[in-house]
């Protein structure tokens, strides 16, 4: 499979169908693992990196996950292909930009992906639509067990799974949810979320994780502490405490807006929709902002005839690398903006 083949459809975990998906778009769990007997990636020679890649590639491709698995050699992939995988959250930006033997194993429905030779030898991830972290943990735990039958991991009885960066040591787990919080943003309460997150050792990041800014009211919330609490504790802290609280606040903020400033709210939503339906040039940033407002409008039933599925599709497929992959060639930003506007217009005017 070529990565560009993915560019015409939305990943299943992003289809907006999961439980609570109006606010919690998706759930993700990642485990960081290293193969015993090898240096960590920063000190690994190219030859030994190839060895690790080869071993992990074979092990992963042989996994029985009930669906086809693909290997993508990132060293041989074009920049466009790499960017496409980043836009679909299948690999990290760092993984795309790095040099040397490295790759990714991706399940056909994109609910499972493994990065080989990123910061750690192996980083496996499981995605689900909506708030389904417990299901993510159950699945990734099982996959981790399967891999472990063939690979000995670097493990220490005191520090747990050893990772290249000590901030991941212990469980090596990163639990995260992608949140859509336009209500908290509009009512000026988003700072409160940031502060609460900080106090409870959680990180709030942008749409693409570490080092990215939050745009269009989308946020990624994840755990910082990986050592000490067990995996299921970290997961249940998210599912039972943190996320329900945020959902409650966001719902309250939306209700308050509806009650006290319905005109302001409608104005924002309808303007966004009108712009999206008329614009001839639109940047990916602007599209993200406007689509975010429309998405809230749909969930609050202020707009009819536009489905969340359509909006999610536009979020994903109007990203720069997706547009270029569909055209089969690199395009300059102006050309992309025109193409993006055209695609959005045609999808939103159908309704």
């Amino acid at each position, binding site marked *: 499979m070529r990565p560009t083949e993915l560019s015409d459809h939305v990943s299943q975990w992003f289809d907006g169908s999961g439980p609570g998906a109006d606010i919690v778009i998706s759930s993700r769990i990642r485990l960081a693992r290293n193969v*015993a007997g090898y240096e960590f990636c920063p000190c690994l020679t190219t030859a030994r990196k190839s060895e690790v890649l080869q071993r992990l590639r074979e092990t992963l491709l042989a996994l029985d996950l009930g669906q086809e698995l693909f290997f993508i050699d990132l060293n041989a992939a074009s920049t466009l292909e790499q960017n496409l995988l980043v836009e679909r959250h299948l690999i990290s930006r760092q993984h795309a930009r790095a040099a040397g033997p490295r790759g990714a194993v991706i399940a056909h429905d994109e609910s499972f992906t493994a990065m080989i030779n990123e910061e750690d030898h192996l980083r496996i991830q499981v995605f689900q639509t909506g708030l389904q972290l417990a299901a993510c943990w159950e699945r990734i735990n099982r996959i981790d067990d399967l891999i472990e039958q063939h690979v000995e991991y*670097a493990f220490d009885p005191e520090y747990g799974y050893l990772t290249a960066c000590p901030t991941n040591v212990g469980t090596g787990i990163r639990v995260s949810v992608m949140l859509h919080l336009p209500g908290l943003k509009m009512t000026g309460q988003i700072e409160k979320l940031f502060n609460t997150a*900080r106090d409870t050792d959680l990180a709030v990041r942008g749409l693409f994780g570490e080092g990215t800014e939050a745009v269009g009211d989308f946020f990624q919330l994840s755990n910082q502490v*990986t050592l000490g609490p067990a995996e299921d504790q970290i997961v249940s802290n998210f599912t039972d405490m943190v996320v329900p609280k945020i959902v409650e606040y966001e719902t309250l903020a939306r209700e308050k807006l509806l009650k006290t400033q319905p005109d302001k709210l409608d104005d924002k939503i309808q303007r966004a929709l009108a712009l999206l339906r008329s614009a001839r040039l639109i940047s990916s940033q602007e599209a993200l902002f406007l689509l975010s407002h429309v998405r809230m409008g749909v969930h609050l039933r202020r707009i009819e005839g536009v489905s969340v599925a359509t909006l999610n599709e536009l979020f994903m497929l109007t990203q720069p690398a997706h547009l270029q992959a569909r055209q089969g060639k690199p395009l300059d930003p102006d050309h992309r903006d025109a193409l993006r506007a055209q695609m959005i217009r045609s999808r939103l005017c159908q309704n």
Partner: protein
Amino acid sequence: MLCQVCKEHTATIHLTEISHGQRTEIHICEQCAQKQGIVVKNQVPLNELLSTLLSSQGQEESAAPGVAGAVQDEVCPFCGMTLKKFSQKSLLGCPHDYEVFDQPLRALITRSQAGHTRHAGKVPSRAPRAMRNHVEVVRLRRRLDAAVQAEDYEVAAQIRDQLRKLQ
């Protein structure tokens, strides 16, 4: 809202204090909060944290040159990692580094892992039984503490029995 103390900056810290049934609210800016000794928890980037730890070690070095100096210059015989290299990229070179740089790493890990220093989660099933038990004991002890704190003595007794079997 302006800070109640300096009346210049925007108040970003809002405290509610309830004492003897009296409720008081304080709205102040970060600078004034610091002056008043109110601690606001911040996430410190790892490399910053590390350089602070390393420089505080440097100070100790002048007091006891032999010990801390040796720690700083240590080179991992397996991967060639040094603390200086580590502080630049925040990435270790191999699993042995956790032993070679035990002391400075322990301080760093304690700080960045909210005070935790022991793993109580998953253990590879191929790990030796002793190692699995070791982690299980840590996990059970932690649960025991929580049960005692919650005054759930029935659960605490069960955990104690499990611990006895393992030890």
